[in-house]
């Protein structure tokens, strides 16, 4: 009688410890995901801040490229207005594309390319782009780990009890970015 009670009590304790362990692991993973997302966010803001400077510096040299500037400004405004991960990844993808087009156009303006101020901005922008992609890399890694934990048995039971929900990946939505650029020899 007492032995049976002891075994049952022991089993209940074991389950409780297990639930606590899984819960803490889930919370840790979720915090890591949030932290990685804030890393991306910091870099995205930095990119938004850099763009007006870049446009200002380039305007003096590139007088015939109004369309390019407008595309960038519009994409920036849209990206700044996005308020969830799915929207943001789409808008930021478009902004990245606009910026890389701009950088291609810059190749035609040797004076601008020699401008110290512009070079410094270009380095900051390149680095920010890199930081965004590295932060995205690490965010997606974290999300993968978190989602796996939520969906796999037995941790999915605990996740269901405390309403942990899956997170979205930060992906580049635009198919154009994945395609190989066309090269024509004319």
């Amino acid at each position, binding site marked *: 009688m007492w032995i049976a009670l002891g075994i049952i009590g022991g089993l209940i304790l074991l389950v409780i410890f297990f639930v606590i362990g899984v819960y803490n692991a889930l919370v840790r993973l979720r915090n890591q995901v949030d932290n*990685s997302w804030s*890393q991306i966010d910091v*870099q995205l803001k930095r990119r938004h801040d850099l763009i007006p400077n870049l446009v200002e510096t380039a305007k003096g040299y590139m007088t015939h490229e109004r369309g390019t500037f407008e595309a960038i400004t519009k994409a920036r405004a849209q990206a700044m207005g996005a308020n969830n991960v799915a929207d943001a990844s789409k808008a930021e993808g478009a902004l990245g594309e606009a910026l890389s087009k701009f950088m291609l156009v810059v190749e035609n303006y040797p004076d601008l390319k020699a401008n110290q101020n512009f070079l*410094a901005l270009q*380095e*900051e922008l*390149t*680095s920010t782009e*890199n*930081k965004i992609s*590295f*932060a995205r*890399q*690490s965010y997606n890694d974290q999300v993968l780990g978190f989602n796996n934990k939520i969906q796999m048995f037995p941790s999915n039971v605990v996740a269901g009890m405390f309403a942990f929900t899956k997170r979205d990946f930060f992906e580049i939505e635009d198919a154009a970015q994945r395609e190989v650029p066309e090269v024509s020899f004319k």
Partner: protein
Amino acid sequence: MWELIRANKRNSIILMACMAFVLMVLGFVIGAFVTGAPEGGLLGLLIATGVWLILTLISYSSGDQIFLAASKAKLVTHDVHPQLFNIVEEMKIAAALPAMPKVYIINDPAPNAFATGRKPETASVAVTAGLLARLNRDELQGVVAHEISHILNRDILFVTLAGVMLGSIVLLSHIFLRGMFYSSMGSSRRYSSGGKGGGQAQLIMMVIAIVAAILAPIMAYLLYYALSRRREYLADAGAARLTRYPEGLASALEKIANDPAPQLQVANKVTAPMYIANPFKKKGQRKLSNLSSTHPPIAERVKILRNMTHGAAFKDYSNAYAAVTHHKSVVPATALTKEEIALREGQARQGKQQRQKNQMRQVGDIMRKVNQFVFLTCLCGLKLKIPPNFKANKVKCPRCSRLLDIPKK
């Protein structure tokens, strides 16, 4: 990634235990010989442990600072070299380090780099001016990624601790052999003054002690080097995984290997494993020196990196390693997860000659800025760089002979 760190930790502990054993045996044998009794061995053991403990405490608390100071490294901020600083930050984000490493520049024309520090929170990355002058952005990124991988894999702690243990072993045997040499010159009969049997035992003891004193440092060096070579491969693998661009590190290593600059001034044998490429380069002894070398041959490292054509994950490096060296993998099996990591394109493109010239000049300016030179631009457009020990408060422009005021700091 975590599997790799764990495996690394285990290997380090095994190595440290081996070296501790060597150190204790050495201490025991020397003690037993000097006093002529087994109880003396315990004393010797105690002294050896004491020396090691003191050195470890010093190096654990401020080893990185001592090392940086000995390398004459200068702490720099974002303003001094934005590109270097940005690249370190990029790699910090990619590796998800808890804090931004401190960035140092060493005023030396030999291209090289190292990382140091006790833990990832307080790590430092140092590169030489020669490295900044020769590498483009992608290559510099590869080198920094290699150093960040060392930080991530806790290699920096390992090198500090194992280096200290190696240092104690070398120190003890050195002092002992020196002592032997001089005492045998002075009074060669001192130890044989006892009875006949005692004299014989003494002689055997002496032979054992001398052999131990000669072998121990060699064994310790070989152990140390074996693990440090392995760690170089792993850091290369980590760099490829972080940057997703193995070619950057490959071409950086190639440039470092083919550089005509003299070897690094501030390196020595124990600190050598900390650098990205062996700071002591001697040509033409590749195969022979394999065992006693801190770094794998650069040509091989480059070849492995260039063989990573399918992706940038650890398993791709492992496959490339196997294809090039025909050895078993260097990457611990637990780290070979099924992740798929695609490679990316390089970014740096610019006229080669022009860039190199500009970079040399920029690096010169960086070093002057770090060393608190004052920069002045004359009305005629000439840029003057005034050293901090220049006493007068006016200077004459050498081109247009205008008198210029030097601003006070």
